[in-house]
């Protein structure tokens, strides 16, 4: 008769804690092995997954219990014997019901207080659900949270899943606000490293000295104030993805250090001679023109080539035909729900303004505009005066693009601009003209129509009498 252990955790809390209860609460299958790969303990989730109880498995070799492909082909525990880093891999197992289950195994060493390996812990995650998700069905015009249906974006949506499955370094370029972060996260989420960490570092956010310690970590005593060991982002991203945003702002000395890591995959924390082999996928992003920076000598050519294994260029919003309307609706629905507002949509006037705007801040700017408008509006429709005022300061000029679809829509439904509305003058104004000039013209026009009667003019403009009087003074119309 096998005598099963009933382990306790001492010294963690005042009273000893029941280890069995603790480990049974973990929703992942957990196997605890000794140094000879024999099963010491397993939890309830593993029992459900494999069909083996602790009584059956106790003291058995783990490959006879887990029965995974990785156990036979490339046992992670054996790989760990020379190297203490944890290993995560996708595999499959056949349980006692003869079912083949796709799993993700993560193996780590169990160390004693002297850092000696005393065993191994394996977590087994059933990934049947995540494998059954059909991205194509669930998101016709999107990949993860990225929305768009223009040809450029469609091409990106086709490439992203392929790139996600590979382990190649990726360089994402594009103007600010085009969704570089979102793409990087989507790649991580759809890659084999999805259960690993996704660590983001903004290379432009910290000074050089801090950045080095932040990225690569430091050893206790490496410099004044280094009172304890710091693991560094690369070590934290082990078995996951590291996202280096604004890579163009990375100082040159750190470019060399990054280059060394990309070559041998070992990181050396500041002040340490002992390296750490990090299994990390690198995604870099920048809004800068790296080729030009290479020519100018501010970015290393060899680093560019190492990062530029696969490149994704995100087009600016003004080049994405038809996507502005799609994104307006997307963000409108999102914020309407978030803020619990009863708004039906945008009025024709406000839509015209939004569709003709240049969006130098790209999707981020569009998102902010929609958020502002939904917040401000108390009507059923969002009117032009609910939009941020800077949109109204800029007249529709020749430099403003208009997507073919939107242009077509506008010719089909010529905008019936009411008298007294903001855009009374259908002729394009020159770029020098600003909102005060437009207002002045509107007031003069209204006064002319009302034969100089300020009451009637104020009515035509939709303003109060005092507002009109104040503006007449301001623009010196009465003089």
């Amino acid at each position, binding site marked *: 008769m096998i005598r099963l252990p009933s382990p306790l955790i001492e010294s963690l809390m005042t009273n000893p804690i029941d280890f069995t209860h603790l480990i049974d609460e973990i929703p992942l299958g957990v196997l605890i092995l000794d140094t*000879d790969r024999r099963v010491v303990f397993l939890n309830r989730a593993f029992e459900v997954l494999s069909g083996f109880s602790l009584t059956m498995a106790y003291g058995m*070799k783990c490959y006879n219990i887990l029965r995974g492909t990785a*156990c036979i082909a490339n046992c992670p525990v054996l790989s760990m014997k020379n190297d203490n880093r944890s290993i995560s891999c996708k595999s499959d197992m056949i349980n006692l019901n*003869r079912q083949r289950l796709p799993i993700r195994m993560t193996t780590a060493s169990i160390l004693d207080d002297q850092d000696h390996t005393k065993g191994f812990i394996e977590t087994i995650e059933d990934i049947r659900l995540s494998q059954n998700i059909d991205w194509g069905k669930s998101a016709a015009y999107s990949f993860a949270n990225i929305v768009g249906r223009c040809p450029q974006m469609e091409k990106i949506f086709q490439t992203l899943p392929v790139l996600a499955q590979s382990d190649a370094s990726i360089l994402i370029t594009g103007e600010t606000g085009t969704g570089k972060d979102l793409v990087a996260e989507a790649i991580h989420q759809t890659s084999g490293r999805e259960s690993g960490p996704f660590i983001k570092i903004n290379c432009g956010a910290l000074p050089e000295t801090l950045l080095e310690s932040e990225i690569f970590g430091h050893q206790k005593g490496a410099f004044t104030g280094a009172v304890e060991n710091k693991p560094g982002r690369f070590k934290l991203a082990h078995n996951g993805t590291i996202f280096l945003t604004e890579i163009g702002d990375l100082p040159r000395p750190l470019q060399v250090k990054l280059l060394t890591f990309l070559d041998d995959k070992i990181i050396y924390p500041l002040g340490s001679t002992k390296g750490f082999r990090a299994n990390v996928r690198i995604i870099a992003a920048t809004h800068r023109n790296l080729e030009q920076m290479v020519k100018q000598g501010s970015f290393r050519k060899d680093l560019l080539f190492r990062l530029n294994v696969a490149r994704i260029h995100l087009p600016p919003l003004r080049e994405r035909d038809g996507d502005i309307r799609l994104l307006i609706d997307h963000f409108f629905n999102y914020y309407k729900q978030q803020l619990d507002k009863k708004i039906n949509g945008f009025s024709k006037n406000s839509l015209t303004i939004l569709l003709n705007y240049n969006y130098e801040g790209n999707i981020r700017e569009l998102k902010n505009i929609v958020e502002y408008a939904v917040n401000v509006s108390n009507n059923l429709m969002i009117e032009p005066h609910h939009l941020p005022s800077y949109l109204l300061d800029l007249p529709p000029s020749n430099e403003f693009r208009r997507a073919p679809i939107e242009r077509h829509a506008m010719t089909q439904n010529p905008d019936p601009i009411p008298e007294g509305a903001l855009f009374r003058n259908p002729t394009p104004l020159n770029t020098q003209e600003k909102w005060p000039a437009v207002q002045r013209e509107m007031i003069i026009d209204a006064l002319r129509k009302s034969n100089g009667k300020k009451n009637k003019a104020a009515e035509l403009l939709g303003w109060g009498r005092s507002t009109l009087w104040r503006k007449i003074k301001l623009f010196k119309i009465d003089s």
Partner: protein
Amino acid sequence: MIHKITIPLYHEEVAPRFDLATEVLIILLSKGNIIEEKKTIVLPRPSADDLCHLLLAETINTLICGAIEEEYYQFLKWKKIDIYDSIAGKWSTAFSRWEKNKLNPGDLLSERTIEGTYV
């Protein structure tokens, strides 16, 4: 009458997975369970389909194996092969238990130790 037994191998043990075995032991027994022939076949690559094909080509009567998928289990059953699956331990132990008619599917025959001590 000759009885043929197959045991997919992993070193000296029954292979933990039928579909991942690259070595197969075939034992030919004559009347009275006398071993007539014992041969090991090394497969070029692990494949459950190839292994099933081999079992049928060799007209195997009994299969002693580790984990096997339901699809292959049912197929081989349908082909009238007697299957003892989920067996763990040395192939010789499994075989001698089968000879004594004491082998059951799911038998875990390995020696059990924890940190070098038998349990």
